[in-house]
């Protein structure tokens, strides 16, 4: 059984939106697996990720199931959600400065959860020190006494990662955890995340807009567009042979450092906003391969060799 199983999840805002934020998405994360959720702003990737913690937009209508272990997160009561967040699922957000209380010492921040769970002060501090060592912070004892403003962004994100690991979660959610960091710092933090994930056998759902980053660290990747999953396969396959025109377009528009790389090729138009609900395939208006039926018939995600793709013309070899 998968560690995380999202099954036909739909989320619709009560008002002010023409289309659901999430439209029947399904995905799984196995124990010890790193799964990427890639998309542009407004694709619904962050909303999907937060739903795993039971954080849904206010007054939103939800459908489907989000199962962690055996339990459906969407039907949990407060006590069950608290247990879920303390013991099973932890999250690392994009901006470490927004994730910690600037008035409290790092030691307080790291031990808060453990203390609330009844761990003694000495044990909690000892564990916090151990975790800071694991994320590569020198002088962990001293670090526990310092305030967040005394850390750089990269160092603070390590503290946040340490905090996420205090409850020994089986599933780690990472929502653009390195987007706010410098590129060399990003490389360090990703290295740490991946090492810890492998050592602890944690499953990870990694949300990012950066395809290259997803390629570097994920086993499998889901690509989202306008609230739907349009393609999924292993990272290698997805990059070598994308089958959805949107995935191919994203790859072509990402500038590459390779010596003989082509200049980035833009996708015309812009992503679909929440106020629009075009019939048929949401990508049709920007797609070079769209036919009349693409603007009428909504493609469903169809399994193929090693993955799945939601494109009416995928079998015609349009991207070959």
């Amino acid at each position, binding site marked *: 059984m998968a560690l995380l199983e999202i099954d036909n999840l739909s989320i619709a805002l009560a008002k002010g939106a023409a289309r659901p934020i999430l439209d029947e998405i399904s995905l799984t994360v196995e124990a010890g697996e790193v799964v990427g959720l890639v998309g542009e702003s407004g694709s619904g990737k962050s909303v999907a990720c937060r739903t795993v913690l039971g954080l849904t937009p206010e007054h939103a209508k939800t459908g489907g199931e989000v199962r962690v272990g055996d339990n459906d997160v969407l039907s949990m009561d407060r006590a069950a959600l608290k247990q879920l967040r303390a013991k099973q699922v932890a999250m690392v957000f994009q901006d470490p400065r927004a994730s910690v209380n600037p008035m409290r010492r790092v030691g307080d921040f790291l031990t808060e959860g453990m203390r609330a769970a009844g761990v003694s002060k000495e044990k909690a501090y000892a564990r916090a020190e151990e975790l800071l060592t694991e994320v590569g912070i020198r002088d962990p004892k001293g670090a526990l006494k310092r305030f967040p403003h005394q850390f750089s962004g990269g160092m603070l994100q390590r503290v946040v990662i340490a905090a996420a690991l205090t409850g020994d979660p089986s599933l780690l959610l990472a929502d653009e955890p390195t987007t706010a960091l410098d590129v060399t710092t990003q490389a360090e933090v990703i290295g740490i995340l991946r090492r810890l994930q492998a050592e602890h056998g944690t499953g990870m759902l990694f949300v990012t807009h950066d*395809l290259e980053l997803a390629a570097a660290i994920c086993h499998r990747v889901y690509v989202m567009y306008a609230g739907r999953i349009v393609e999924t396969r292993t990272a290698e396959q997805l990059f070598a042979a994308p089958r959805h025109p949107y995935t191919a377009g994203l790859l072509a528009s990402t500038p590459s450092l390779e010596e003989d790389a082509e200049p980035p090729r833009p996708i015309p138009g812009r992503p679909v906003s929440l106020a629009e609900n075009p019939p048929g395939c949401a990508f049709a208006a920007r797609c070079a391969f769209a036919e009349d039926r693409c603007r009428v018939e909504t493609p469903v995600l169809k399994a193929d060799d090693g993955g799945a793709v939601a494109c009416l013309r995928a079998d015609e070899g349009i991207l070959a």
Partner: protein
Amino acid sequence: MKAESKTEAAAIGTEPAAVAGETLEVRGLCRSFGDHKAVDDVSFTLPPGGSLGIVGESGSGKTTTIRMVVGLDTPDAGSIALGGRERGRKPRGRAERLARAREIQMVFQDPYLSLDPRITVRDCIDEVLRLHGDHADKAGRDARVEELLDQVGLGEREAGALPKRLSGGQRQRVAIARALAAGPRVLILDEAVAALDVSIQAQILDLLGRIRREQGIGYLFVSHDLAVVRHITDDVVVLRNGRVVEEGRTTDVLSRPQHPYTRLLIDSVPGPGWDPDRIAESRRALAAVEGG
């Protein structure tokens, strides 16, 4: 369309005298804040209509450098000259300040912060045209606003809109049109595509490439993103702790980096086959150089 815009500017005759062939020369630039040397002896040259990448991470001094180049800060030492006109010292009077402002314009990273939320796109560009006094009458300015918006791919609908009705990419187009309205010789692009979605980023890079080809405006392209720098610049300087550690043709520097810091930057860029061990090795090499 583009040919028309050039003739019109020439006809009005208010473009700076030396339209073509002005070099931006920065020599020995220094700026300290207290004991901290933010910029330490930085020199570079932007040839006329060229594109120079300034690459560095937080604390490298790239922002302080361009703030001095554009005139938002004054250097402690060194010179900044465009077409031989020194702009490193404080301007004397309004006329000189305006003349400097129009020569070098800037596009900022976050189009959600760089546009006044209460002013429509048309008025925002009109304001620049009025300030720089190219077009005395309203009709002339209106025509120019339309032309500028057309150059960046925006139409009548966007012209009447407030920034909040526009997407990030559209806002960045407005910011570019606004910078072009002043008729600059040099455009400073400060992480100007960093906040955009990748499909939109490619559109803006395309647009910037076209504007440079057609209008011969020089770019100072400040970025942390080496892949973007590779595609939009001819030359590059790599800054670290306020100093230039490497410079040269962009393709040479990125394919055959000489300084260990440049190598570390390149290795750190994620992609298929990305290897944390090699990055750690690069980091040790850099530490060895900087420790000794």
